[in-house]
């Protein structure tokens, strides 16, 4: 079993490494689309929101882009009435990477449109688009996204997936059809989703069933014809809120995300040239949790504002203007109750009007 030549020895090492890596890559590719536990309501809600954009792609419009703080915190019909421009809410989930949420709207943008980036603070610090959460969602219900990526990005993506997740994917793919929970996750077709939502919207004063259920809160059937969430449930406590902001990045040493700023700059420069106005605003936060005079928060806010100013994007308001009583929050420190949503939207409208943004005839 001895090898006389060190060349053979080195080649065997390289071959073994290559072979095992190829096997792992094959397992990775095989499990794409396995219905592992994920937030499938995002898959369904994306289809609904795309449908909304399709319907109004030739109309001049204002689109709110962001995570769930926009989804639960913006009343688009109030903005539409206040500004006189068709308004749609594309907010869904703050775990979706920035380039991903921009890619959702860019095919529908035209000259004269307005994009308002209503971004959670984590967006400013995300080092990479491929978080463990995001790769899980993509592999479960949107593998086409992976295949659309360039080779370099595909490698980055696959290097962001923990091996345990690949193993879970392989096992689910192999045995999933025998598991009731996995079978329940079978993806609905676009037609079925759109049929269900149109039927819901056709009902006068439509409200989803059981408005105390989180399952119904995070569902495509909780979207109104403007893209806003119809209802929310839950009650936030101060400890969770404080913890949330620490994780989100505002109340810790600010670490700049090169990825985020590059995507933002490209988007702004390209779409301004095409006659699309872009604004940035701030998400709602719980009053009295963040000390806006503390050095850390000041540094974070200053760093973000300076970078936005460098790019030249107009900003609506400042972070401390969007603080609300904790009673106006639902299950997380970004999700507002309907009363909170109205208050937040009114403050945002005030900022728009302060910038002279108003369209007399919609």
């Amino acid at each position: 079993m001895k090898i006389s030549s060190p060349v053979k020895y080195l080649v065997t090492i390289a071959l073994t490494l290559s072979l095992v890596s190829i096997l792992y890559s094959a397992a990775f590719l095989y499990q794409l689309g396995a219905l592992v536990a994920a937030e499938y309501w995002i898959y369904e809600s994306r289809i609904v929101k795309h449908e909304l954009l399709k319907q109004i792609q030739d109309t001049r419009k204002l689109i709110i882009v962001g995570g769930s703080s926009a989804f639960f915190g913006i009343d688009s019909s109030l903005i539409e009435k206040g500004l006189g421009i068709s308004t749609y809410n594309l907010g869904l989930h703050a775990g979706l990477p920035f380039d991903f949420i921009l890619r959702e709207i860019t095919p529908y943008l035209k000259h004269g449109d307005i994009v308002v980036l209503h971004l959670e603070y984590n967006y400013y610090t995300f080092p990479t688009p491929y978080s463990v959460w995001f790769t899980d969602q993509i592999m479960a219900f949107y593998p086409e996204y992976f295949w659309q990526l360039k080779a370099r990005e595909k490698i980055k993506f696959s290097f962001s997936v923990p091996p345990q997740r690949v193993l879970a994917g392989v096992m689910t793919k192999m045995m999933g059809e025998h598991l009731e929970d996995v079978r329940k996750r079978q993806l609905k077709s676009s037609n079925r989703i759109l049929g269900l939502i149109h039927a819901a919207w056709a009902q006068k004063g439509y409200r989803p069933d059981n408005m105390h259920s989180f399952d119904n809160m995070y569902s495509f059937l909780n979207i109104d014809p403007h893209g806003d969430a119809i209802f929310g449930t839950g009650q936030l406590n101060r400890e969770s809120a404080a913890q949330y902001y620490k994780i989100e990045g505002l109340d810790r040493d600010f670490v700049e995300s090169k990825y985020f700023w590059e995507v933002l700059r490209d988007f702004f420069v390209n779409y301004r040239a095409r006659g699309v106005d872009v604004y940035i605003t701030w998400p709602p936060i719980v009053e009295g949790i963040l000390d806006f005079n503390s050095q850390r928060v000041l540094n974070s806010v200053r760093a973000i504002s300076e970078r936005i100013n460098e790019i030249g994007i107009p900003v609506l308001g400042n972070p401390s203007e969007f603080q609300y009583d904790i009673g106006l929050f639902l299950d997380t420190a970004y999700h507002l109750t309907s009363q909170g949503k109205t208050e937040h939207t009114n403050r945002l409208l005030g900022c728009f009007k302060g910038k002279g943004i108003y369209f007399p005839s919609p």
Partner: protein
Amino acid sequence: MSLNSLDFIFLFLPLAIILHCLLVKKGLFHLAIVGVIGASAVFAGWRNLVDPTLILFSILINYLVGLAVCSKSSAQKARRKLILIFGLTANLSLLAFFKYSKFFLDNINAVMHTANPLVTIYLPLGISFLTLQQIAYLIDAYRGHIKEINFLEYCVFCSFFPKLSSGPIVRYGELVPQIVRSMRSLSLGVLAEGTTLFAIGLFKKVVLADSMAHYADPTFHTASFGRDLGMVEAWGGVLAYTFQLYFDFSGYTDMAIGIARMFGITLPENFNSPYKATNIIEFWMRWHMTLSRFLRDYLYIPLGGNRKGVLRHHLNLMVTMLLCGLWHGASWTFVIWGALHGIYLSINHGWRRLGVSCSHAIGWILTFIALSMAWAWFRADSVPAAGRITASLIGLNGLWVDGFRGALHSLSKPAPEYNYLAQFFVELKVAVSFGRWTIYPVNILLSEPFIHTYWLLASGVIVLSLPNTREWLDLANQHPTATLTIRKAIFIGVLLFFVLLASISSHPSAFIYEKF
């Protein structure tokens, strides 16, 4: 640049080896030596230009002092001694300025209630190791152990990049004679050997040490924030650090020795399964062996060793270990760590004098517990934090900080990184029902405490029952390449695949000893 960084592995190292091989193949030996020095300068200067400048300055001074000190004329002995003292003082002053000025001023300010400003907080690359090597070189030169000194070879001795930041601590006499010889022994055989050592070291660092850090760090952070830990949690964290430190440092050493082998140079071993030691004296013969050798030959023995009576022997041990602690870091925690080892060694020597035998098993258990408790001081950020962990280790804060109910709760949910996997088994209905209670065994088996335990057990098996790198590769064999078999090649390929997998979930982290 760290030995486990992508820049180093995929860019710097291949280029340095190819350049060296080309120059050697063309017979340009002097140029090849200059090439190694140049590569080392680039390695040192990757972070900034201060480090190579400082190293060059230090090399120049020491080279000149060495020349003056190794003069053969016995008539000038007093003058040579004076120059030696100057050289030693210069080296220690440089180390003191960069490494200890902050510690010194902090303590002065604390005691005198003053506010003297800091001189510097910059720690040049490998300064602790370079200082020891150059001190050994000057003393060897003074003692007449070094016959002639060539400047280029001296530069390689000091700056050879694999050992620059964290050793092994090499003597002039064991490295320099190899430099020319290495050019003739350069072959694919040494490249294969070097690659094997490098891969094993990389595996130890990326897969084992960094995984253990995931369990050790939270324990020490908790103590730093002033929060107490239960006995089980404290031991979990301290044992994780005990293994992390070994895998990290011995991994670095394997990588350094492997890279040097690729250049045809053999660096001395630094570890010989230290946790198999059944007493502290044996531990120091197996752990950081080149440091132990330095301390023995240039400190302990000159102090008188065990030749000046029992009391002086114990005093010498204590002084040596206190300085050993201080060398590791400018902090009271390191001093106390050194003092603990001084006490351990004194007890061990005292026990030997008594002539009472002790079984290997009991000796091993006592040694391992004592070592682990001392590592808590080595790792802790402050004396209060170390005190808090020690209190927890001896059970003063109960078994679990959140009580038994809290411990059960942490067993009931899978660790976040295994959530998807556990979920699959829940959906597979792998469950045990007790009346109205349903238990999901996989959630328990993949919970944080269980995963932590698996890592500790695996580390224990690797450290205690498997051969170490040297034994596995049979490096004592006259022709080690003859032991490179297909099985070993496949094993190394698989280890490298695990490195690749582990690098998915973690970013390259610095080696612990690079901070010293």
